[in-house]
């Protein structure tokens, strides 16, 4: 998938407590979460983000607490994809499962300046920042599948269907549906 938008540059070790403080963890509606993103460290952030925008962050993005309100709030705000030097693993997995692609590319992040335009192709791993071209590892196939299905929910529905077909197939395996890890 290809994403295009304005760049928001963030630093190293951005934790999920600053993305959305603990007291807001009883919020369950994404649109409501979006209103509180970075409210304490950058109250203007929410107003600056336009649909499709891309975050370029430093190392260990999303560290600390595993809270879905963080990636869900960013996605509801309109962030289309995140490129970072590295990700905290729970945040990384949450972002994938919610259909918010996380890519790792230190060179692109280091070259990015606030407000530039960027274009990210998750399938080829190609990233353009202000016209400069970078190449990173494309996301693994399983992750591509989850993201192109819009998140883990639809992927699981497909997996349940694959299992159902497998159970009803002839014993010789004829007509075996494609299964993926």
């Amino acid at each position, binding site marked *: 998938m290809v994403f295009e938008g304005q760049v928001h540059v963030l630093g190293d070790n951005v934790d999920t407590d600053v993305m959305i403080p603990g*007291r807001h963890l*009883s919020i369950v509606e994404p649109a409501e979460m979006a209103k509180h993103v970075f409210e304490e460290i950058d109250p203007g952030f929410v107003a600056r983000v336009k649909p499709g925008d891309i975050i370029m962050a430093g190392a260990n993005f999303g560290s600390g*607490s595993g809270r879905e309100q963080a990636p869900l709030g960013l996605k509801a705000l309109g962030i289309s994809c995140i490129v970072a030097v590295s990700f905290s693993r729970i945040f990384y997995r949450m972002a994938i499962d*919610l259909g918010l692609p996380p890519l790792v590319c230190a060179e692109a992040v280091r070259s990015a300046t606030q407000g530039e335009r960027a274009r990210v192709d998750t399938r080829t791993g190609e990233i353009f920042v202000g016209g400069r071209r970078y190449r990173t590892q494309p996301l693994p196939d399983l992750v591509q599948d989850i993201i192109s299905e819009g998140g*883990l929910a639809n992927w*699981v529905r497909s997996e349940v269907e694959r299992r159902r077909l497998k159970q009803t197939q002839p014993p010789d395996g004829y007509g075996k549906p494609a299964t993926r890890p």
Partner: protein
Amino acid sequence: MGKTIAEKIIEAHVLHDTARVEPGAIVRARADVVLINDVNSTLTFRHFENMGGGAVAAPDKVVLVCDHFAPAPHASGARLAKDLRRFAAAQGIKHFFDAGKGGIEHTLLPEQGLVGPGDLVVGGDSHTCTAGAFGAFAAGMSWAGLAAIMILDETWFRVPEAIRIVLSGDKPEFVTGKDIILKVLQDLGVAGGLYKSLEFSGPALSQFNMDERMGICNMAVEAGAKAGIVEPDGQTEQWAKTYCKRPFNLVRPDADAQYESRLEIHVSAMRPLVAKPYSPGNVVAVDGVKGVRVDQVYMGNCANGTITDLRQIASILKGRKVAKGTRAIIVPATQEIYRQAIAEGLCEIFVEAGAAVTTPTCGACFGAHNGVLDDGEVAVATINRNFKGRGGHPGAQVLLANSFVAAAAAVAGEVVDPADL
């Protein structure tokens, strides 16, 4: 080629024996425990319904605990607990713990014998890694992932690289498991363990009891790690024989296991450590913050509200008073620990000293309730995070420390070395 503890535990849980369990590989595996709290509840169950819902594939593996907004400080928190209660009833999940019936999930899980050595545990909370103290591979994961595992009874894992951390020497007075993990954070940094398994071993481990080992593993995630695991020993085996409700497996690493790196910690020369705001990796010796005035001391969380911690706190508070101008809050991690603290007379010592003793809850540890801080306030806390805004107001400051240091700060009204009290 030899294998690490993480590799061996994952290998014992993979679904297809053709899958090679080696660092970087992605494998499909079954879990033994799926831990879900009230903060995870509504969003996780929404994913569950979006995935087709139906019956949970293995309801006995699921453990539901009300601990974050428990007892509920507001209606929206009460709604999360209500959803947890409703899901437990609808799915026939027997391991459900309401406020007043359980406690903080990561301390409760081993206390109830629901986790054991060799288990593979997943949970919606990042501190799920605490169960590594008991020789389990335990990792926090996405909430959509929890819903998926409840439907499919399997999930995927990336097999982690491992760092071997070897403890040697004699544990000095006032040094606890908390200091071991703070030392690891000082050495590795907050991203030094990203995606990895931190595996603790060495001759000094025997001086840290199961409670203190929880304190060590609890903050493995603060180094970015996927899991923190203590190599099982005689203490682990004894604990497992007493508590585990299921068969257990003491998984030790092979002698020729491949570790990415090795970290040696000589405990003999250690003094208590403190993590300064606003990062758990901003670690200094307690002497480095001596004299810092303290408004509040908060003692208790998912690994430091154990009976061992409460005894350490009591040893400092006994016959002393919480300083004028300072407030102390003590949170036993579970109902059972609370009961035991009462039986041992610890609660009396706390109340006599002028400390607030509260019901088990995650409370102020995540800045939600039960002791939230205002602008400009300084706290010493035995919790695991001190990010900006974590304790309440973004202008508040939290110093992370062990229970001796915290209790000593409560008495002195400022940071002191407990040895100088």
